[in-house]
């Protein structure tokens, strides 16, 4: 069974994590998401999405679920992996004070799970203040430095020049991160979870969103798979995500997964067709090519 992808969603209180999770659930479109939260009270699932609810599990339209893990994340992950049908993707909404890299590190210890990246929500209006906060400042900075993707949310609340300044500041804090600006948590789902990207790629002609586009690279021969993955993760290329298959120099089919500057390769079934779907910012895709 392929490893279950896990995305860690973090960010300080009030950054818009809950709004974004609802947005993802609303656009799950057949991808079965399982959302793990510290505590139910923290994550308010939109009423109209809820199909059924008990003490430990909320069932959501479209086969998604939400469960609270309290103090036992490992236990909750193992439970989720045993569910029938198995979820397609796990999303951990970490608490406002959590260090998301530590959570991702813990997930990586468990067999049968694959870390699909750390996505941090940041409030464009208050981020710089939180980063200066007497108590929480260093925690906010650690969250930023752990991120593969930062969703800079609530951009409608700040002037353009202030936004540009905040964005530049973020990039300086974490040069490897991809920053996606958004409002009301309305992020392109494909950018947050690779399961959405795979589904979008499979659903026919690549659609284009407001400020992102998708394309597929198809190697026509065997490649150095690690080289290719490293190339796709290069910050100069600026890809947000990439995922797909290629054949290694020795003839082994390999899965390539890229989120921001983080990349991983692993052995895959030989019957997979070569092809890597890439998601990037509009206007930057022209340089995306095989190395």
């Amino acid at each position, binding site marked *: 069974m392929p490893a279950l992808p896990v995305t860690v969603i973090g960010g300080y209180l009030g950054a818009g994590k809950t709004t974004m999770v609802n947005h993802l659930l609303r656009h799950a479109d057949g991808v079965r998401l399982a959302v793990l939260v510290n505590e139910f009270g923290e994550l308010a699932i939109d009423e109209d999405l809820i199909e059924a609810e008990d003490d430990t599990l909320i069932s959501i339209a479209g086969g998604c679920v939400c469960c609270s893990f309290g103090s036992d994340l490992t236990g909750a992950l193992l439970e989720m992996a045993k569910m029938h049908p198995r979820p397609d993707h796990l999303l951990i909404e970490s608490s*406002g004070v959590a260090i998301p890299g530590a959570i991702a590190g813990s997930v990586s210890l468990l067999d049968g799970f694959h870390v699909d990246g750390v996505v941090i929500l940041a409030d464009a209006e208050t981020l710089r203040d939180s980063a200066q906060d007497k108590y*929480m400042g260093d925690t906010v900075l650690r969250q930023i430095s752990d991120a593969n993707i930062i969703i800079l949310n609530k951009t409608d609340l700040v002037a353009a020049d202030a936004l540009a300044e905040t964005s530049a500041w973020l990039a300086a804090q974490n040069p490897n991160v991809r920053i996606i600006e958004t409002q009301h948590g309305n992020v392109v789902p494909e950018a947050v979870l690779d399961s959405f990207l795979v589904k979008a790629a499979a659903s026919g002609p690549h659609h284009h969103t407001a400020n992102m586009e998708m394309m597929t690279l198809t190697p026509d021969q065997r490649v150095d798979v690690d080289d290719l993955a490293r190339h796709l993760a290069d910050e100069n290329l600026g890809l947000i995500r990439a995922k797909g298959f290629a054949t290694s120099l020795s003839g082994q089919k390999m899965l390539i997964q890229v989120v921001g500057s983080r990349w991983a390769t692993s052995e895959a079934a030989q019957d997979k067709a070569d092809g890597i779907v890439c998601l990037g910012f509009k206007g930057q895709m022209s340089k995306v090519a095989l190395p």
Partner: protein
Amino acid sequence: MSDTTIYTARKIITMNRNRPIASHVAVRDGRILGVGDLEELATWGEYKLDETFADKILMPGLVEGHAHTMEGTLWRYVYCGYFDRADPDGKMWEGARTIDAILDRLKQAEVEMTDPDAPLSGWSLDPIYMDNKRVTRADLDSVSQTRPIGVLHASGHILNVNTKALELGGLMKTGLNHPGIPLGADGYPTGELYGPETMTPVGVHVGFNRSLTDSDAQGLRDFGKLCVRTGVTTITDLAARLEPDGVESMLSVTGEDTYPARVVPLQMFMGATAKETVDKVVALKKRATDRLRLGRIKAVADGSIQGFSARMRWPGYHNGAPNGLWYTAPEQLAQLYRLALAAGIQVHTHTNGDEATEMVLDTLGPALTDVPSPDHRFTLQHCQLADAAQFRRMKNLGMCVNLFANHHFYWGDEHYRLTVGPERALRMNACRTALDTGVPMAIHSDAPVTPLGPFFTAWCAVNRITASGRVQGESEKIAVEEALYAITIGAAYTLHMDDEVGSIEVGKKADFAILEDDPTEIGGPNLKDVRVWGTVSGGRVFCAADL
């Protein structure tokens, strides 16, 4: 009319200034009818004279304001600690002072096990007393290669396991890249696991899982025995998950006729919102009984100093380690404090580092402005690194403090040398400053982190001696009388129970510590050696030798 029993004692130390010393105490309906001499007490009418304690010293039943009932459960595992320690049945386990001694003890336990697949669990390991020599999985493999083995460190933050346990937990592989999993030269884990996220996947296979913190019925009964042996009649469980089954079990066990202590479990603030937590505790409080005092909350602001997860103010850790972790955000704590104050529910907050203490002070202040609560007695637990200015703020905010006196003995040298450096190590657990500032103070063991035993805790606060024998922080020593106050009425005050327990005076619960030695005469240097005969809890007599 109910029966009255008058106990004769060699001496009764009442902790009540109007009658500090007496020879007799009268008990009726589990309460103190009076204390004085026989002639005075006889004026209450018919009585039965009981000479059981004629050669004993009586004190108010001791109050332990910060312990965990888990101590009772852990004794079913193999004790691997460095120091001698008594188990619930009174057996004194000699400290295991070398790794070989620990392995021998584990081997002996292994031989006696009948189920070949059952895990072997040990506890209270602490390499700092053994030149910091680390236990490896190869060491534990020498005990068994087929049975999973896990030994929990005294701090509770580190777990040592053998190869079999690593295999069962899916960690017996190369290529791991995690700060909590040191790797050996061969690229495999050495068998030491740091922090809950690395301990959990393996811990479940070696007898250490989350539910261990909820002591089961047997664990709670064993915990009660430890209370009798140490003179304790009121004790906290700080903190508990208090899930429905656990609450029923605690109600049932503490309700047994022979249960010897009042247990005060605090609901942990974790995994639920402030509102859910306060609502739950308001409901639990209605179910409180005489011996199970439900209805309080424990919050945790930061981690531990020796684990480098406590939040420190400038200049931070002495060895340059990065600042620690917040376990609860200030906003969440602010919400909890407001809701709890409004509902009349007391909150105790764990802080270790001085930045965590500062955060709590900054957070409680505005909450009290919004919800004025003159007698809230919100208590800082551990609060090990607070400075004089912070104690003054505690006083102004009406806070109490429960300082970790035992910690100073066990880890004081480590703090001096490594974590906070010489200057701040002197002010840790500043009992003198607390009292001089007028902050109501208790002192604690945090059992099972250190052994339960209020006279030892009092000795720590009076002498401030570290494990290596140095006096650390001469100016923070307190007098014997002050220490005895801290382990009785002082601790009772932090629980809002000083009207019921903590002194021997008319109307209070007949809760006594029955002693062979007089703690006011034995002398500060010997305070830890006060011998305990047993206790009286609600008028019921418990002799340690008969348990």
